[in-house]
């Protein structure tokens, strides 16, 4: 079985999706989906271990066709890392889902939910493992389409308009990516990333390549919600069902960042005329990232809907990742990659906590969370821990990525950048503390039913994610260290 490791993470959810759909039974479908997710997670972990310990990427030729004609799955450390990220988040969030969606989604649609969820996950995993540029597009569409459907399941009417907006913008992004991919194919005659990278060097920065870069950048910018292309994100996160929000927020934008990393470092490279450095990496990306860090954080401060608040915070955090990626150094890249993972854990945990709250009080408005600290102490405590992670307080995963990011900035003697990063992280203090103060210092609204602590089946997954975000703030062997390994691989540093 081990030779199939590279393909398993995609295959399992992909096949399980129709099965869940066929099962039609709510419990059976969800059960199957959860089981499959966990198996996928295990497979992902084994894959990562294998890649890390053998020191060589796992390569899988689909249908036995070699790279020049067929699709090849090429799993290096980064890809395996993202696989683990997506599969672990997917598994935990789905474990959370049954009880949560019981209140948010009509019962007869649960199997549908399970199938879409698995499909979306399969798409994201596919993006991670594939070594084929067009295949990336295909999987991107698989995951996007199923995500649209998932979001539209939200009980709020606005979920539909949010989905529609996401659909339009997502499709624009996908189209741009497709155009870029096409142009690249035209120039290099191959879709395999490794070969493409080899051919790019020969093109000497032909304008077609540059145009391709422009399209790809704009397209992926939309997909990863890089400021100011984030317009689809807040509402989509806000009105989707809790578990969908958690899953999407934790994985889908991260995978887009992964794609960006792939393009910058694997295909186009960071040196020479045909590379993405120069305009994109040195100018556009940091500019968008920094403005996002500040503006989106500030917007988050003023939000009254906590899910929306967290959504804007996500936009800001994407800025950190993009900034790390754009620094083109080992620690910068490490920061970007580590933050993918760390932020996924933290934000996933936070959205799950919001799920718990929505489950009990039926609202995610800040005003309705007054006095929640005493009535849902465990949930709020977990929320606080997650919030600290967002700020980047030591002992949380957020700190680790911030550390690398600041270090990268300082290594390039960019003191101003380090200051900017740290200052913007202070904005997080404000929006996190707004929630904490509301929950702990204000009297609960009168006339509402007594609220009790969320059920264990919701609390445990939440606690697992938040706990993991703390764990990886202290023990970085399987988070930041792996990210560093991946960064070195991408930069071609011999390990």
């Amino acid at each position, binding site marked *: 079985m081990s030779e199939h490791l590279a393909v398993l993470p995609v295959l399992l959810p992909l096949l399980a999706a129709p099965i869940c759909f066929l099962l039609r039974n709510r419990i059976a479908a969800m059960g199957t989906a959860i089981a499959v997710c966990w198996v996928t997670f295990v497979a992902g972990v084994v894959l990562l271990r294998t890649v890390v310990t053998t020191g060589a990427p796992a390569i899988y030729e689909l249908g036995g066709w070699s790279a020049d004609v067929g699709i090849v799955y090429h799993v290096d450390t980064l890809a395996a890392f993202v696989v683990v990220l997506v599969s672990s988040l997917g598994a935990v969030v789905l474990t959370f889902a049954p009880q949560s969606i019981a209140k948010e989604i009509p019962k007869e649609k649960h199997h549908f939910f399970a199938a879409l969820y698995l499909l979306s996950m399969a798409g994201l995993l596919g993006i991670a493992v594939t070594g084929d540029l067009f295949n990336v597009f295909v999987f991107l569409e698989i995951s996007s389409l199923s995500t649209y459907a998932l979001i539209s399941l939200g009980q709020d009417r606005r979920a539909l308009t949010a989905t529609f*907006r996401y659909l*339009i*913008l997502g499709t*624009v*992004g996908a189209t*741009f990516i497709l155009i870029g991919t096409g142009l690249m194919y035209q120039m290099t005659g191959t879709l395999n990333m490794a070969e493409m990278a080899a051919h790019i060097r020969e093109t000497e920065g032909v*304008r077609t390549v*540059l*145009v391709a*870069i*422009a*399209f790809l*950048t*704009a397209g992926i*910018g*939309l997909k990863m919600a890089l400021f*100011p*292309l984030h*317009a*689809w994100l*807040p*509402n989509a996160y806000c009105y989707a069902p809790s578990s969908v929000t958690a899953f999407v927020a934790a994985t889908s934008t991260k995978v887009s960042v992964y794609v960006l990393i792939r393009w910058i470092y694997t295909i186009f490279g960071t040196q020479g005329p045909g590379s993405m450095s120069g*305009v*994109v990496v040195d*100018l*556009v990306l940091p500019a968008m990232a920094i403005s996002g860090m500040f*503006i*989106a954080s*500030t*917007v988050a*401060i*003023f*939000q*009254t809907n906590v899910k929306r608040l967290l959504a804007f915070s996500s936009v800001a955090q994407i800025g950190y990742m993009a900034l790390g990626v754009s620094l083109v150094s080992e620690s910068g890249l490490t920061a970007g990659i580590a933050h993918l993972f760390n932020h996924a854990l933290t934000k996933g945990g936070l959205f799950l906590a919001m799920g718990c709250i929505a489950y009990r009080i039926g609202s995610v408005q800040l005003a309705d969370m007054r006095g929640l600290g005493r009535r849902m102490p465990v949930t709020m405590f977990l929320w606080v821990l997650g919030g600290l992670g967002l700020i980047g307080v030591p002992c949380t995963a957020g700190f680790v990525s911030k550390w690398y990011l600041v270090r990268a900035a300082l290594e390039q003697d960019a003191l101003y950048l380090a200051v900017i990063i740290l200052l913007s992280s202070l904005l997080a203090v404000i929006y996190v503390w707004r929630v904490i103060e509301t929950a702990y210092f204000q009297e609960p609204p009168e006339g509402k039913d007594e609220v009790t602590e969320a059920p264990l089946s919701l609390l445990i997954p939440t606690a697992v994610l938040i706990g993991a975000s703390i764990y990886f703030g202290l023990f970085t062997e399987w988070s930041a260290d792996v990210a560093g390994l991946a960064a070195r691989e991408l930069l071609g540093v011999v390990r």
Partner: protein
Amino acid sequence: MSSLPPGFLLFLGSFLVPLFRGKWRAAYMLALPVMSFLHLMGLPAGFTHELELFDYTLTVARVDSLSMVWGVIFHLAVFLNVIYGLHVKDNVQLVCGPLYGAAAIGAVFAGDLISFFLFWELTSLSSVFLIWASRTQRAFRTGMRYLIFQVGSGVALLAGVIFHVNDTGSIAFDHLGVGTLGTNLIFFAFAIKCAFPLLHMWLKDSYPEATTTGAVWLSAFTTKLAVYALARAFAGTEALIYIGAVMTAFPIFFAVIENDLRRVLSYSLNNQLGFMVVGIGIGTAMSINGTAAHAFCHILYKALLFMSMGAVLHRTGTVKASELGGLYKSMPWTAAFCVIGAMSISAFPLFSGFVSKSLILSAAAENHHIVVWFVLVFASAGVMEHSGIKIPYFAFFGHDSGIRCKEAPPHMLLAMGITAALCILLGVFPETLYAILPYKVEYSAYTSSHVVGQLQLLFFSMLAFAFLMRSGIYPKELRSTNLDFDVVYRRWIPGLFRALAPIGRFLWSTLIDGGKSIVVLVMGAGRTLCSPRGFFGRTAQTRNTVLEVAVILAVLLILYYA
């Protein structure tokens, strides 16, 4: 036992005072100085007690001829004070009095600057309670000023010692001499406690506010300790001669116009210190002897005067010259002792002041400080004038105020009696005093020229007083608070603060308001742009976002094609 430093018994013992009551307390308190004194006497000559601390070798005790004089008189003063204060029931005073004395004794015997500093500060701390123990708002404020001055002296000393140690690495407390920053600061510290001109305000400010007994305690130790310190470290510093001369002269004027008799005494105390300071400044064996002797005598007669005034205060509740008079009828003993004290301070022959002051005057003459000598002589007349005559006259004689009260309590009389006896004893048998002086004395006070000269002076000043009183030129005793140099810190500096406060407040508020308005501006901008309805916060229209994508694409393309 014999290895304990002098004063140690007294020091520890004073803390235990509150444990006793009534007679036992009296006995215990009397025993304390006696035991301590016996212990001191039992110590061998050249005794030292050393202690290792922080890589320093502290000489906690060093008994030599100079310190011995002060050691003896301080013990004596403690003993007399205890007797005088036997009626006191306030634990604060009961503890702080002996403690204060013990600290002073400790300081006198301290052989290094660090221990000296520690005791120096201790005298300040323990003595301030004697003022506060009056328990009035006035005493409270005065005490605060006193404490600030005393600790100010302490910190100056500390700073000086630190610089000195840093310069020389030595902590020995021997002759220092002015010159470096460190020694100058030390000198300054001594100057404060010794109430040099312009630094003297604390003295006449605080002593009159102390309790009846407190004033007596205060009069004995602080300033004399400073004199000792100056003698130890700065003997022969010429500046001291002139400073001392000024000191002897200028308080006279204030003393003359002062109404509060205890304040008059304070001024005269200040003036007496001047003699000692001159003695130190001259720095010869004779003058140092004079200083030591004068300190010795001074403690006694000044205590006697303060005691008598204390007794008056105790019985009548006031020591205002304008309210007193004719008390000799009710308090004859007190009046008598007061007169003895007055004659001592005025240096009548056969009284203690005479035998010590002559030493200093002779030393000045011998060293050809003619001007200084004249100043001293003039000051002596002045002393006669305000302490020798004014005090007894206004309190016990003069116009009858009609106050009829009881004679002072027996223990007070006893204390005064002993002190008075000592004053006379020393005056009559100066050899006993000369025997314990630091240097060998070959001097006789009772030469005809000395005696005649002194008597002439005294009688002329008496005449002057009588003349002035008769002609009505003598300043009336008015109820007023005379401010001299303390106007600087009691009026001007607070005034300056009051004047500057609005400016400071204005600057501060401008700063704060400016900061606030910037914050408000930034917050406002943030709110306008980023609130849920703001430009960034509202849900962007899809078409706008598509436009943005297009723009970004365009920008990229332009950048690439440029």
